[in-house]
């Protein structure tokens, strides 16, 4: 994947993912309507907004995990480096191998720490040698800032770790497959403030190598870590149906200091949501 070269002398940022008029429906319900936005390389893009605004639905369409929800239907385009992820010949499995995901609740597998991290590489590459696997596991745990804490007991069950450690294990697991983009759906929602700040600094470190998209409930977190922020909200249409949509997306600094939309301003000022 040579496209991932980062240095960009002109200052132009390269677009990694692009949503064009995205609509997601669950059964007859059009839950998310008409979202268009760009996600840039080696940036953290944060999705914020009140609950039910569709931000999680949108992030799930970025690596086709929406497919796993029965009755979910995606319309519009989700482009990844120019390829439409929902095109007919696209294999969602290939997509997920390039676009990794970390979930709201840490979800380690009921296996050893080592096997948790080695799982991705093992399923992708059939005949991985033992030393290769060991290298990947060590590098990934290093990268996720967990190595020093667990290097002596890699055979311990992933469940035995604390919540924050579990989430870093899940991050290590996600980067072990060497993805291009890392999606994080409220990764700190179930963590205490200390664990949260560790994950936040980890994100700011990971963005040097990866493109990161994060959904968060916590505006301060978006302000602290992200380069760009997308603000979503929900509204009720003429038929009484509730739907989410994108209000605006801009540089985080601008969004928080001088948002162009009144609704964003109100939300950030804490007047609703």
């Amino acid at each position, binding site marked *: 994947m040579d496209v991932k070269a980062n240095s960009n002398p002109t200052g132009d940022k390269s677009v990694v993912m692009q949503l064009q008029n995205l609509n997601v429906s669950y059964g007859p319900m059009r839950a998310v309507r008409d979202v268009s936005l760009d996600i840039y390389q080696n940036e953290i893009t944060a999705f914020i907004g009140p609950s039910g605004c569709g931000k999680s639905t949108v992030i799930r369409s970025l690596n086709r995990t929406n497919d796993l929800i029965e009755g979910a239907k995606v319309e519009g385009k989700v482009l990844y480096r120019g390829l439409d992820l929902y095109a007919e010949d696209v294999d969602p499995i290939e997509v997920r191998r390039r676009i990794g995901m970390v979930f709201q609740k840490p979800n380690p597998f*009921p296996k050893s720490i080592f096997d948790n991290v080695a*799982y991705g590489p093992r399923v992708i590459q059939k005949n991985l040698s033992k030393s290769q696997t060991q290298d990947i596991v060590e590098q990934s745990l290093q990268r996720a800032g967990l190595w020093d804490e667990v290097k002596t007991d890699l055979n311990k069950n992933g469940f035995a770790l604390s919540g924050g450690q579990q989430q870093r294990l899940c991050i290590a697991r996600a980067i072990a497959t060497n993805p291009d983009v890392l999606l994080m759906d409220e990764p700190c929602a179930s963590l205490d403030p200390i664990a949260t700040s560790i994950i936040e600094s980890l994100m700011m470190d990971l963005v040097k190598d990866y493109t990161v998209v994060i959904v968060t409930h916590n505006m301060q977190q978006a302000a602290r870590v992200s380069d760009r922020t997308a603000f979503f909200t929900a509204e009720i249409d003429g038929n009484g149906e509730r739907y989410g949509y994108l209000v605006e997306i801009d540089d985080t600094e601008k969004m928080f200091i001088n948002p162009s939309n009144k609704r964003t301003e109100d939300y950030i000022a804490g007047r609703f949501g």
Partner: protein
Amino acid sequence: MTTLINKTNHEHTPLALIFLSLLWFSLFTAATFLIILFGSLLLDGFSRLNGDLFTQYNNTVPVQAGARAAILGTLFVVSVAALMTVPIGIMAAIYLEEFADKRNRFNRFIELNIQNLSAVPAIVFGMLTLGVLQILGFSNKNIVFGGSLALALLVMPVIILTTREALRAVPQEIRAGSLALGATEIQTTFRQTLPAAIPSIATGTILAISRAIGEAAPLLLLGALVFITYDPNGLLAGFTTLPIQIFGWSSAPQEEFKTLAAAASVLLLAILLMMNGLAIYIRNKFERKW
């Protein structure tokens, strides 16, 4: 204040007390029955609970009779049945729980069908097996293969249902985590979901096999109530099993045979209790609370 003081009286009206004692009575009846059943069998059969029960073949002379052929027959027939039914049952459950599109009519029909099969009278599986043996051209219906087939078909729905429950108990996040790493659905199932469910599946399977061990009705139809004085030695050999032997001895007129039936019942219950204990042990030791 009065209402607060009356609170206990309010719960302890005569009617409420009668109601509660009726509930206790129902529990008491069930427990007493259990104790009397175990106690009477033990008392009746005690004199014949010795090595002869295991080493002697059946005999027309009650004092020389034992259950050797029946014990070995049970072991053999049930093992073969388990080999036939456990893999198929687990695979069927995996399909229904992990892959089947629930909106598809045929899949829904399969589900309904399995629910019904789990409640079909045991004896019907004996009649089915008679039909199958006839089609396969076996002239002898009392063969190990037939007995195993009948028991396998009988417990398969049970295995499917308990395996499905075990798979359902594995949290969705495990599957999502695996799929998000780019694993296929098959990889996810066989490397994550199924291994995580194995302890519960094992528990359910052991209980299903216990049911096969104790079942007699379908085997009766295959003519397993026969006098066998040799160890079953092949899939086409004649056989009898412990429950059938108990049935045979219970219907015999001589009192000594009834004693033997009681002794064999105690043995059968002991085997089943051990299986149950094993199932509970596995459940407590390995089952994961998610």
